[in-house]
């Protein structure tokens, strides 16, 4: 039966080439956009180099003070002091990785300026994040405690500073008027991994900011690595209990907000959706869905219009089939299947187009080292989108068709 539908669908496609072109153009372009956006979202939100164990990680990215009376608030990253005095005392996590925000530091060599984004880390950072070392190894706890001037640099920093592929371990690099001894070189991280991107990593003891400053607001990000993903709820509870015990900053700013979040929660909390204890994930997904539906509505309507015209074209065929006893249900079913077949052909073209666009994007280096890909998840999502799209645009015309009177359909001939 399905084989018959398929044959009919192909025959119909061949009959009105112009309509076929319009349908396929609409479907494939719409799905191309959906797939590219999905690939981008997938890249930003899912685990990947160097952050591979995301399912058992929680992120501490924000510290916010708020005055319950005045309504004013201050929000930034938590400070090193906060992590050292409170978070590192927690029992649930296996490890705690700390990394500061990027500091732009400069070197001037031969009338040329080189800007290096420098981040300060602790030693466990290298255990939690799986940076791939091209040569050398990370600095040790010993070196950090001694405040030795050592650093791990990225591949592109090495290539810029020493030349392509020249071994750099043991050599010295100067930035911000300080000479650092290089202990390791890591593979580049794309800018889109906002917490883990840096051109150069150095021990936190070298930071110019005063690490003994007791302010809880600073510029560090913490990653809590748990023993297993079952510990997540336990960890969040323990974290919130700890936060409740922190003394108040001042009378004006009497409320504190800081959370151990999954990556997605930390992401939406940074957008304007998050508010207080609510990370805003629900709102985020709602708004994305509304946007998605609005975007799909125009191509869908267009396809519905085209499909109605196509069906009217087959007035007589439908009349004959009805006269010979085909039920409305069978006809609706047939038409939806036909439409899904067309949609899937459009979907295939869409996947090819988005594959080309993604290749062009990766080659263009608009965001260096950012490698988008159409992986299994993205493919699954686009197939789902395709199904929804095909179904939506097929149902209404099919329903219209099924209500057609046999007499009028036959008379039209």
């Amino acid at each position, binding site marked *: 039966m399905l084989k018959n539908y398929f044959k009919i669908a192909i025959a119909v496609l061949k009959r009105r080439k*112009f*309509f076929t*072109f*319009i349908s396929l*153009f*609409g479907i494939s*372009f*719409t799905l191309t*956009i959906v797939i590219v956006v999905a690939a981008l979202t997938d890249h930003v939100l899912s685990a990947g180099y160097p952050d591979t164990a995301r399912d058992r990680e929680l992120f501490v990215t924000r510290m916010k003070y708020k005055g319950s009376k005045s309504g004013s608030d201050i929000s930034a990253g938590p400070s090193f002091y906060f992590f050292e005095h409170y978070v590192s005392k927690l029992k649930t996590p296996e490890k705690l990785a700390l990394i500061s925000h990027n*500091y*732009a*530091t*400069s070197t*001037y060599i031969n*009338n*040329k*300026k080189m*800007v290096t984004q*420098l981040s300060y880390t602790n030693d466990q950072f290298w255990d939690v994040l799986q940076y791939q070392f091209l040569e050398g190894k990370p600095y040790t706890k010993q070196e950090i405690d001694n405040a030795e001037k050592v650093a791990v640099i990225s591949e592109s920093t090495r290539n810029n500073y020493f030349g392509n592929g020249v071994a750099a371990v043991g050599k010295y690099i100067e930035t*911000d*008027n300080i000479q650092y001894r290089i202990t390791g070189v890591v593979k580049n991280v794309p800018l889109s991994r906002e917490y883990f991107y840096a051109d150069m990593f150095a021990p936190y003891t070298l930071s*110019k*900011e*005063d690490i003994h400053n007791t302010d809880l607001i600073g510029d560090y990000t913490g990653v809590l690595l748990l023993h297993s993903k079952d510990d997540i709820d336990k960890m969040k509870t323990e974290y919130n209990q700890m936060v409740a015990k922190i003394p108040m900053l001042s009378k004006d700013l009497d409320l504190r907000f800081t959370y151990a979040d999954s990556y997605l929660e930390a992401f939406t909390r940074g957008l304007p959706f998050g508010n207080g204890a609510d990370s805003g994930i629900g709102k985020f997904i709602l708004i994305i869905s509304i946007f998605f539906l609005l975007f799909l*509505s*125009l*191509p869908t*309507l*267009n*396809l*519905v*219009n*085209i499909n*109605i*015209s196509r069906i*009217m*074209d087959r007035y007589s065929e439908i009349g004959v089939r009805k006269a010979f006893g085909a039920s409305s249900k069978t006809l609706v079913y047939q038409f939806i299947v036909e439409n899904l077949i067309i949609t899937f052909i459009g979907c295939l073209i869409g996947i090819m187009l988005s594959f080309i666009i993604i290749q062009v994007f990766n080659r263009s280096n608009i965001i260096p080292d950012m490698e988008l890909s159409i992986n299994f998840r993205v493919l699954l999502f686009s197939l789902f989108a395709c199904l929804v799209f095909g179904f939506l645009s097929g149902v209404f015309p099919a329903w219209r068709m099924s209500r057609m009177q046999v007499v009028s359909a036959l008379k039209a001939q």
Partner: protein
Amino acid sequence: MLQHLFKLIWNKKKQNFLLIIEMLISFIVMFAVFTLVVYFYQNYNRPMGFEYENVWTTRYDNPAGMSDTDSVTEFRASLKQLVKAMPQVAEVAFSNVNTPFSDATIGGGINHGKIQARTNLYSADDAYRDVLGIQLKAGRWFSKDDMGAREKPVVINESLKQELFGNDNPIGKTVNDHDRVVGVVSDMKDEGDFTGRKNAVFSRVDTSNQLWGGVMLIKVKPTADADFEGRLYKALSGAIQNKSIEISHLDKLRTGKNQRLLTGVIIILIVAGFLVVNVALGLFGVLWYNINKRKSEIGLRRAVGASGAAISKQLIGEAMVLATLALIIGTFFAIQFPLMNVFNLATNTYLIALALAITFIYLLVIICALYPGRQAAAIFPAVALHEE
């Protein structure tokens, strides 16, 4: 004639309903796109309001532990002295983190009597206006005489003046109950070439109101090169122990800021463009099909003496009436934006966008109906009637 067209459309209301919805949504999409484009174009056409060429910025902070007013004042004076002594430096000014093109903004409220307004807040010292070349429209800029003034002097920009004072002279008036307006400057597009009108209040950097660090703006001479920047960097790193020095150039920051915005707009335009092509093809297909269906009707009209031009006019007219119906509904929604002041844009931005969107939809419909209409005009009555 028009009545007749309406009747024809009403008879096929089921079929036309979806077409109207499609035109309506296209119109709303185009209205949004045109609003964006018109808004950015209007902003782009306004003058910058300040000069960003040869201005460099860097953060600075007091040495660790320094917190009393006298030593901070002294530290800043010596820092300024150090930088100004370099031959390629023309002028130095202190400000807060919200320097032009910096991504940082500081906002707050301001009032004059009962009139309230939201505004950006800037900290500026006596040299700030010279460094950025801001044009003074009325009154004066800050000077040494303002030190220790009983009423805090503030300078406002033209947009804020318009909002708080209308056409009155603001000089000498009181704002926030205890601050005095001493000058009015032109609006600065300090968030990039496409920034909209923003209110601004400048207050004088003073160790009594800003003890912590901020940003230094350095106006250099055109001869300053990377070599000089290296020397400046060394000197600043020596003087400012507590902060990583990063020298940025305002012209480069501006380019980056504009590029980021333009990338977003171009992506939106590409997507909107594809949607429009999609809709155009769809409309064309449906109209063409409808006309093919009505061959006998058209043939009959030709047979009783209608000219080809009249037929083609009728079909285009029908499409236009459909579009008009969609546009009336669409305009009803679109007009709510200026009426309810949804995004705080100027009314004329919306009106221009509305006019452009309406014209665009009409043009689109005419173009899509033109070819099918011509085809219909070419129908021979004998052939069409023979088919029946």
